[in-house]
């Protein structure tokens, strides 16, 4: 065995002491498992980018994904214990909360103005929301599409009862339109761009500047509290993904943009600034507005819920405190 010089041993020991003093003792982290219910929607790009770039595995989290057709289904999966966390928009969360489920919101992911739109076949004669009276409008009930349509109809001065609502899954929209089973649909990205691309000039798009879609990560509150460490690491992965988006906005989501363009034939509809993790008053306000609407139209009983209580800011507080702009409800 080669003889190690005393000076080298002394230096190595001093180096270790200095490293320990300056960095503290860190135990090696083993990857924690976490089940995530995913929805194939571009509005969740921060999560997909984190998955693609390995931000979760880098933070010691082993993600198992399960795909759902809508956020409503994903949240249902989370509430039923199929997954720990779910990708979901605000409407299913509000509905679940009104139904008495203990929903916990970990973080919002974006704030999107052009995510949802009304598409109508030109041959149906629809030129605006006002023309929807007595028309067959397809949408998935219990999703944000329902609130979007409500706001559109309200702006046009007509009510839900004046329109024939058809509850239909997003996967069936195209077939229904081609068969002329529907006059219009309310749909979100990427199916929105896909449908526009498919039907070309046979279809028209109508937006509403009143509706703001807020995709988020939510789940059953009790379950989230059971896997606190895993959720914290998950949020850390989200923060890394968002940081990359901020530092390189032009190259961020490159794969997702290309995939979107490939599948829809349309340009990715949002800017980097539309995506941000956080818990904010805008989210609470939108949920309050939707809750008021749902209580009025669906006849929910009981006191008006305090949506601040759904927020679980402890994870973001630890990882990225500046992203939490609500007062802590805990």
């Amino acid at each position: 065995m080669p003889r190690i010089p005393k000076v080298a041993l002394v230096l190595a020991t001093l180096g270790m002491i200095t490293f320990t003093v300056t960095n503290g003792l860190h135990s090696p982290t083993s990857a924690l498992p976490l089940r995530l219910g995913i929805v194939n929607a571009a509005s969740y790009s921060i999560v997909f980018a984190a998955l693609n770039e390995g931000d979760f595995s880098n933070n010691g989290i082993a993600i198992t994904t399960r795909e759902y057709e809508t956020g409503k289904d994903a949240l249902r999966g989370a509430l039923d214990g199929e997954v720990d966390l779910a990708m979901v928009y605000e409407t299913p969360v509000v509905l679940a909360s009104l139904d008495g489920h203990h929903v916990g919101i970990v973080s919002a992911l974006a704030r999107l103005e052009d995510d949802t739109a009304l598409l109508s076949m030109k041959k149906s004669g629809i030129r605006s929301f006002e023309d929807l009276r007595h028309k067959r409008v397809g949408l998935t009930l219990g999703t944000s599409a329902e609130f979007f349509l409500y706001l559109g109809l309200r702006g046009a001065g007509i009510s839900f009862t004046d329109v024939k609502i058809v509850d239909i899954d997003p996967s069936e929209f195209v077939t229904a339109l081609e068969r002329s089973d529907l006059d219009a649909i309310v749909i979100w990205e990427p199916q929105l761009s896909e449908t526009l691309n498919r039907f070309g000039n046979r279809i028209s798009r109508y937006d509403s500047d009143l509706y703001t879609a807020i995709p988020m990560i939510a789940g059953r509150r009790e379950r989230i509290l059971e896997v606190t460490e895993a959720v914290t690491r998950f949020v850390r992965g989200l923060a890394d993904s968002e940081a990359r988006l901020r530092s390189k906005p032009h190259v961020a989501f490159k794969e997702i943009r290309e995939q979107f363009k490939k599948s829809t034939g349309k340009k990715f509809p949002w800017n980097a600034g539309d995506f941000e993790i956080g818990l904010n008053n805008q989210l609470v306000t939108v949920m309050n507005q939707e809750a008021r609407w749902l209580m009025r139209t669906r006849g929910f009983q009981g006191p008006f819920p305090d949506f601040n209580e759904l927020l679980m800011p402890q994870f973001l507080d630890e990882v990225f405190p500046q992203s939490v702009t609500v007062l802590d409800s805990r």
Partner: protein
Amino acid sequence: MKLGLANKIFGPSIAILTFLTLSIGYTGFEFARESELIKANSEISHRLNAMLAELQQLLNERQVHVHLLVQERDLIRNERVITISRKISKLLDGFLDLKPGPAAGKYVRRLIKGERDLSKARKELSSSIVSSREAEILRGYTFWRIRQEKLLADFQDMNIYNIRWIEGLVRSSEGRRLQSFRLILWLFFAGFCLLLMSAASVSKGVIRPIRQMTLAARRISSGDLETRVALSTREDELESLARAFNSMTEHLIAANTQLREAIQSRDQFISVASHELRTPLTALGLQLGIMGREMSAIQKDGSSSRTARAMTVANRQLHRLNQLIDDLLDVSRIQHGKLILRRSSTDLVLLCQELIERFQDQLAAEKVEIRLQAPEALIGWWDASRLEQVLVNLLFNVFKYAPGSPVDLRLFCTGDDAILVFQDYGPGIKAEDQRRVFDQFERSVKDFGVSGLGLGLFIVREIVEIHGGGVRLLQEENAGAVFEIRLPLKGEVEPPIKEDAPQAT
């Protein structure tokens, strides 16, 4: 010769000093920059807070006027709402002028967009009021409220963000301070490492060669003349010193060899000359003896007494010449380790008494009185003739250097040793001469007008030491030369050759 050593010592020191200066300078610069950043951000935050408070007030005021506009259908309220809205828009533009950073800028842009949407809603509302269509008024007011709520939510978000931003600045400042602390620790560690490496380098380059040279010098001084300082490929002052050291050692060895050869030649010459001189002297002695006897016969016939005196002088000079040659032969024997003791049971007191008696005439002639203080007998295992030679040599020194001086001769016994103290009261021996007085061919006084080879005390010391004893010169006040001779009663060292020594019985 290159200045490698200076580079070794000063080079690392200057490098470490430069490193630490730059490091500390950099840390100081970072601290200053951070302080400036915090100061600038604090000012922005302060102004932002003031503007947010004003914005809050304007939003509340406008909300009241819109509410009254819908309730009272008073279009003057609409003018008031327009005025407030303009103030709000101006204030929001002011927010952007503050350049509060990308995150806060995002909130401001949202407020501006929300305000634009609200302006559109206000126009629709005022149109519906003008046209007095109730359903449109209700719808317009509903949309106004939805947008107003969103605007207020954005406002609250911005407000809290501002607080969080300040908190973040503090946290970030603390983090950077910790980072600076770590950096300083690492810098000091790095400096310490450099220092150690420099010390090790200096030790290797400077101290180690010096140690090697010290060790080599010690070995050489202890007699190992083959020792050399190991040379390296370095070209510095120490390497030059090492080469000079080795060169000096080579010269020393050469000089030593020459000296030894010279001494050997001298000893050989003395030995050969002594032997060569002894033969004709013996013949000369015999002839002088014959001549003496014949002179005595002639003298009886009335021959010249002058010739008889000349014969006496010749005999005395011959005797003296014999003594000198004996001394030289003894020195030669000592040099070659061939001085042989013939030990026997000897009474030192008796030996002294017989000597005094034998030299009575000469002592009288030289006016030297020997005062003997001795026990009745002091018997040891000694060579009597050699001890007599010791006493004679000491006595002859008195004749030469202290004629007319009394001599105290004290004999006594201490433990296993016999002590003989021989003291005269002559001029003594100077302090500077005492060290070499026992060396061969040395005389304490060279210009005293006395002859001799300077071998007497050398032979004294050698005889005493071969007996296993020792001799030393004592320094006493008001005394001349004082010699103390110690002789073991039983010789510890057995004589090397004893073929003719009497066996103790």
